[in-house]
């Protein structure tokens, strides 16, 4: 098998999406930690368009954008599939994966905005969570059924990073009473061995986001 490398960064949930996918499929890889404040020339060479992590490099060829990487991994290593086999269910999974990409951004604004921008981000975040609770999960253990799939991975940040953001801003979005299904999903997701063993230290994530928040809110 050709060499697999992953350029990632420990605070980033996007990086973890790829880690989870590779580990769930049992694909050996070399992990390269990037310092996002001092990006390596290799990263800039592999991702000249966005200059971001994660980047998967397979046999010397780079693939960028976490969800594009996940689809690549799924097609290249079909064992332990992350997408349903049924075509319609696959389309539904891809719909929710796109939803994660488009609507997830609001959450990342929560810890670094105030005033009107913050209110807007709150509204969008709650709407997103409500849609997940009511339309995406139904009564299944994971988004696509009994096993972790691409949608669970796409929303993985809810299971770990959202709690950190809630602590930072002092507001709880995901109340257990209002979001019973999501709460159950978070519990199930974090109990999976691969996930449990591959999450960044919560305290470190908190410290990092706190610093970013202070920097962002302090600047004029």
């Amino acid at each position, binding site marked *: 098998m050709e060499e697999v490398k992953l350029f990632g960064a420990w605070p980033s949930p996007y990086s973890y999406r790829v880690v989870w996918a590779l580990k769930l499929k049992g694909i050996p890889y070399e992990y390269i930690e990037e310092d996002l404040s001092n990006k390596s020339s290799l990263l800039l060479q592999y991702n000249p368009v966005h200059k971001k992590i994660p980047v998967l490099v397979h046999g010397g060829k780079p693939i*960028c954008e976490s969800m594009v990487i996940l689809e690549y991994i799924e*097609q290249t290593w079909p064992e332990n599939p992350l997408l349903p086999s049924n075509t319609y269910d696959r*389309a539904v999974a891809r*719909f929710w994966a796109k*939803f994660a990409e488009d609507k997830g951004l609001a959450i990342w604004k929560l810890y670094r905005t105030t005033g009107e921008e913050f209110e807007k981000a709150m509204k969008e975040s709650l709407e997103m969570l409500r849609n997940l609770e009511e339309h995406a999960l139904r009564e299944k253990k994971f988004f696509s059924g009994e096993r972790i799939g691409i949608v669970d991975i796409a929303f993985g940040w809810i299971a770990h990073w959202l709690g950190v953001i809630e602590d930072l801003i002092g507001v709880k979005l995901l109340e257990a009473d209002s979001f019973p299904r999501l709460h159950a999903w978070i519990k199930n997701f974090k109990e999976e061995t691969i996930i449990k063993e591959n999450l960044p230290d919560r305290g470190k994530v908190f410290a990092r986001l706190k610093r970013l928040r202070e920097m962002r809110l302090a600047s004029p």
Partner: protein
Amino acid sequence: MATGDVKLLGAGASPYVNRVQIALNIKSENYEFLEEKLGSKSELLLKSNPIHKKIPVLIHDDKPICESLVIVQYIDDVWTSGPSILPSDPYDRAIARFWAAYVDDKWFPLMKELRMAEGEEAKAAAIEKIVEVLVVLEEAFVKCSKGKAFFGGDSIGFLDIAFGSFLGWLKVTEKMGEMRLLSEAKTPNLVEWAERFCCDDAVKDVLPKTEKLIEIFKIMQARAKAPPSN
């Protein structure tokens, strides 16, 4: 292999809807086009896409699929006897997906920015950013096409559809702004690709004519400026 009832909820002027129409044409798949009226949303749309309430929605055997590129991928997965839309090679497929995301996430918001820009300076700045991005797409075209006619090679593929669907509105922007976004000077390959794309059998009856889009644009502008009604 699937046959069965295929309906498309959409509006002819929407590039996102056009993406789906082109994909269905490539597969020579018949479908019923249910036109949504400008400014209102049908019961069927609200029921089929409760989350976004947007077109296009493909309804295949009464099951709805939403999000234009998800639908295009679904069409490719289901109608396997027709020409392929996505590349078969996983790496080429990843590259096509990457650039399709770039079109939607990077290029399209800049076009919106230009439309909202007020004053010559703001417009000029927006145009400069758009041209920069088009130059990036020009380079992507050279790499992806490998000397052939389309991003997808000899025939139209996923990325051609993703980007090409916007050519109608791009021409409207150029005409109304009396300027060129795609030019022989900076994006010669894309200029030629655009012409080939628009003439393709799967495309030529789908993208509305520039004059028709300008008409629609003026109606939408008037509505946006009109006092709100019940």
